[in-house]
């Protein structure tokens, strides 16, 4: 499923938190990839990063923490229309696509094969992924 960075936030949506990581500093290459992708070095605390996953938009909220390099933490939220319920099955598939986008972007030694095999060992890869 294609994951594309976009810059225009869809209107009339609410932010539904779906995944958070309070400390992303232990492998700095992950933060470095996100800093570069979303130009956080120049404008760290402007609008959240936006990703389009097959028409569903997710925002990445970058969080600072005293004494830690920025971003120290990340929250991913689905932008869901109005007050409509979120489709959680679809969200799981989309999140998986974001995980693959992330690993592919960070690069070696991280790999899609390792991610997919790990997920298969624990049987958590969404069926259509």
């Amino acid at each position, binding site marked *: 499923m294609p994951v594309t960075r976009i810059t225009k936030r869809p209107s009339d949506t609410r932010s539904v938190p*779906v*995944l*958070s*990581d*309070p*400390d*992303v*500093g*232990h*492998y*700095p290459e*992950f*933060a470095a990839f996100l800093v570069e992708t979303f130009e956080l070095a120049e404008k760290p605390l402007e609008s959240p990063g936006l990703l389009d996953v097959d028409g569903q938009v997710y925002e990445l909220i970058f969080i600072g923490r005293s004494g830690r390099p920025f971003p120290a933490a*990340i929250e*991913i939220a689905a932008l869901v229309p109005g007050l409509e319920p979120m489709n959680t099955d679809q969200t*799981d598939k989309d*999140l*998986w696509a974001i*995980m693959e986008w*992330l*690993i592919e972007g960070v690069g070696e*030694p*991280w*790999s899609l*094969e*390792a*991610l997919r*095999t*790990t*997920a298969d*060992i*624990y*049987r*958590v890869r969404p069926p259509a992924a």
Partner: protein
Amino acid sequence: MPIPYQEHTIYRSIKDLGPHVASRYPYESKFANVNGWRMHYIDEGPRQAPPVLLLHGNPTWGWLWRDTIPPLLAAGYRVIVPDQIGFGLSEHPHTPSAHSLDNHAANLVALIDQLELSGIFFVCHDWGGPTGLSALLTRHERASAVAVMSTWAWREPASDFHRAVMPWLTLHAPLTGPHIMGRQGAFPGRSMYLSVVDRKHMLEDALSAYMSVTPDVGDRRLTWQWPRSIPVNPDTDIAADRFEWLEAGVRDLNIPSTIIWGREEQVFTADVFTPVWHEIWPHAEGTHMVTGNHFLQEDSGAEIGDLLVDFARRNVRITKEA
């Protein structure tokens, strides 16, 4: 000091987990306030008997020791089994800094102080090792003996498992770890199923008790946060200093000790880890090999209990304070 809500709130206890659990873990739920968190524990056997402190790791709770406890009680020991903060029937804080290695070790120190334990036989599995041994070193005058199984107390990961991108580092990484282990519930679910010898028994008789105390995503935070205290990168490690202190401390520790390991252990493999323990503690008994993978208590809980009783009868002393 009680938490103000404690007098007026009904917390979930062992009996609330249903007869499947309560009949096989038939003990009274107790709660202590440790560093502001609500810790669940059981405390069985005569109050004046030597205390045996059974310490679990990730992603388990006191239930792990259910088959190990009866031989110890039958032999006359006092048995105390806390659920580490973040697991079991203890409070599950969502504040990340609650889950530092230091804070978890300090929670055990607080429990030891509140129960005024002395002459303690520490029994440490998995993260019950770094936390329990840190507590032991902090209250060394109250320690009588120690047993370790599938655990470690040194800075460098001694296992290829902890250096491999698949699966360990992928589970350890930003976002993928919380997604796979937390949101998707791989821990304790399938991870525990895969880490025993008798998987049919695990699935039919035990796994639901682990999963029922971590039902929601937020309840599983410690499953992916605890591993991040394992030193893997000198530039970013958050607990390396504590592990250096811990290793130095256990090397100076000269109390009766015994080592018990699972023959089928795949994470803390016996051929790599037990020689390190014997090098650190040349006086240690063992290694006693039992049937078992990482959660060896699931396959050999009663046998482990018998081994602990045999060791304790020869080595656990009652201190003046007991």
